[in-house]
């Protein structure tokens, strides 16, 4: 076989490979657009007037307007946003304050039976929340936490704590042993070890953990619905009540949904590199 004969079919294979590649890239793009379309449609509809939202077939060309957004915020969306921001921020801070030391005790200087402890945290994620709603409602009623942001702060902290412990532990495990040893030999003590060695390495991980906790708290519906429905609703509750009162106004509904989803979609886009790690509890990178 000559050199020429060897090369010819290979070049042919490469061009065929490229054509194939373009085909699969187009398929991937198409699927991505189809799956994204409902979100895009929500955003498009939110800029429509009610008249152009209700057409058969659906309208693609229309005069964009911001009326729906101003309508949403003038019909009481402000307070729910403030409740959601408060609950998300406070509970995430609480989660980090509790999870950081716990992760330290499970990763840097592991306690005895650290594996069992880790799995205890995970097992609490498997408890059906719904089984707890009746007693939680009754307890909240008795201690005066019904329609109070703090009830949600306490519950959401419990929600996210196992996830945060697992995730932060996986970031701690990445701190090189030698660096820790060196810090210990230098005799800097725990404070130096934490601020000079561990923190610089795990800080991006902590930020990602916080963002993922925010995603879950912001979107939570179940507990918020039963514990804050009447006076201090969070964003998801506001959205559902909006459906009940203005369900036939699609453009306004879409505007409310767009505003409600935007913070978390942005948080998720920013944290997307760490998303898989959070979702797999730190097991996958």
């Amino acid at each position, binding site marked *: 076989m000559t050199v020429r004969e060897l090369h010819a079919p290979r070049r042919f294979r490469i061009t065929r490979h490229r054509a194939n590649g373009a085909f699969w890239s187009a398929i991937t793009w198409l699927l991505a657009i189809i799956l994204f379309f409902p979100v895009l449609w929500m955003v498009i509809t939110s800029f429509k007037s009610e008249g152009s939202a209700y057409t058969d077939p659906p309208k693609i060309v229309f005069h964009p307007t911001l009326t729906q957004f101003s309508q949403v915020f003038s019909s009481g969306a402000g307070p729910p946003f403030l409740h959601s921001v408060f609950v998300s921020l406070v509970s995430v801070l609480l989660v980090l304050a509790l999870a950081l030391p716990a992760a330290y005790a499970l990763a840097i200087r592991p306690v005895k039976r650290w594996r069992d402890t880790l799995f205890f945290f995970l097992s609490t994620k498997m408890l059906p929340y719904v089984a707890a709603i009746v007693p939680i409602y009754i307890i909240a009623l008795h201690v005066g936490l019904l329609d109070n942001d703090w009830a949600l702060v306490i519950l959401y902290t419990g929600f996210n704590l196992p996830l945060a412990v697992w995730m932060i532990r996986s970031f701690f495990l990445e701190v090189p042993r030698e660096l820790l040893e060196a810090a210990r030999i230098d005799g800097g003590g725990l404070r130096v070890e934490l601020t000079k060695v561990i923190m610089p390495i795990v800080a991006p991980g902590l930020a990602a953990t916080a963002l993922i906790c925010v995603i879950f708290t912001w979107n939570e519906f*179940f507990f918020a619905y039963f514990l804050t429905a009447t006076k201090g609703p969070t964003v998801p509750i506001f959205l559902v009540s909006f459906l009940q009162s203005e369900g036939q106004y699609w453009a306004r509904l879409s505007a409310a949904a767009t505003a409600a989803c935007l913070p978390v979609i942005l948080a998720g886009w920013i944290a997307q590199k760490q998303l898989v790690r959070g979702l797999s509890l730190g097991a996958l990178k």
Partner: protein
Amino acid sequence: MRRAPLLPALIYMIVVTQIPFVVTLWYSFRGWNTLTPGSNRWVGLKEYQLVFTDPVFRSAIINTVVITGSAVILSMLLGTALAILLNRKFFGRGVVRTLLITPFLVMPVATALLYKTTVYDPIFGLLDWILSPFGVHHVNWIGSYATPSLIAVLVWEWTPFMMLIVLAGLQGESLESLEAARVDGANSVQTFLAITFPHLRRYIELGMLLGSIYLLQTFGEIFVLTQGGGGHGTATTNLPYYIYELAFQQFNVSEAAAAGVIVVIGTEIVATIALRLLSGLFAAAEGMS
């Protein structure tokens, strides 16, 4: 003293999960219906008997298995396909990835609300518009096909989750063994079945287990989309929705508590098995990365 930093988190979780459970247990042995004065007294196991003889409870178990099972399997199939497509270099890959993870980030009740109005509406919905060339007109999707409508929404939400986990698996795959297979003359289907799939199996199991843990708790989507049955019946009443109806529609606090205790015990059994599997999977994943 090594344990000291662990204690606050540990105690917090024990308090938050165990106190409600003890209170649930207490009410499950009473006969409290908030509409019936004087019913809040000790009745022993009567409420458990009521739950076990309730046909809606049995159908709720079946619905939970059907809804969770089909949503997990379908989103895993779709997610794996997308992960394989994404695991190539092509123009705009980052953008495509960003678009594809978005459904998971949309607030679940917003998703349900959008599908209920702009997608599933029998006259003005997108689905009606897309299917009208095929002779499908004005179908009351949610009313007539409550369970499939719900599962489709859940699959849309959870496909990105599965995709990300499988994609992490694909990217951890060693290139040498793939190259070796190609040199040996294996085509891409053979390579996939012989090397990629066995390697991916662990990731697929991990994704399905974690997905099931979350999907078993589905409530908001059912609450908004079908109200438990698409207007009538109990076709989409899963266990969370069943307990919600007992407690907040029928005001049967004690029967809801009894159902809650049963669900917790059932979940514990399933969870013990799942945790055993998971601990193997996590150990393997940590070994791999």
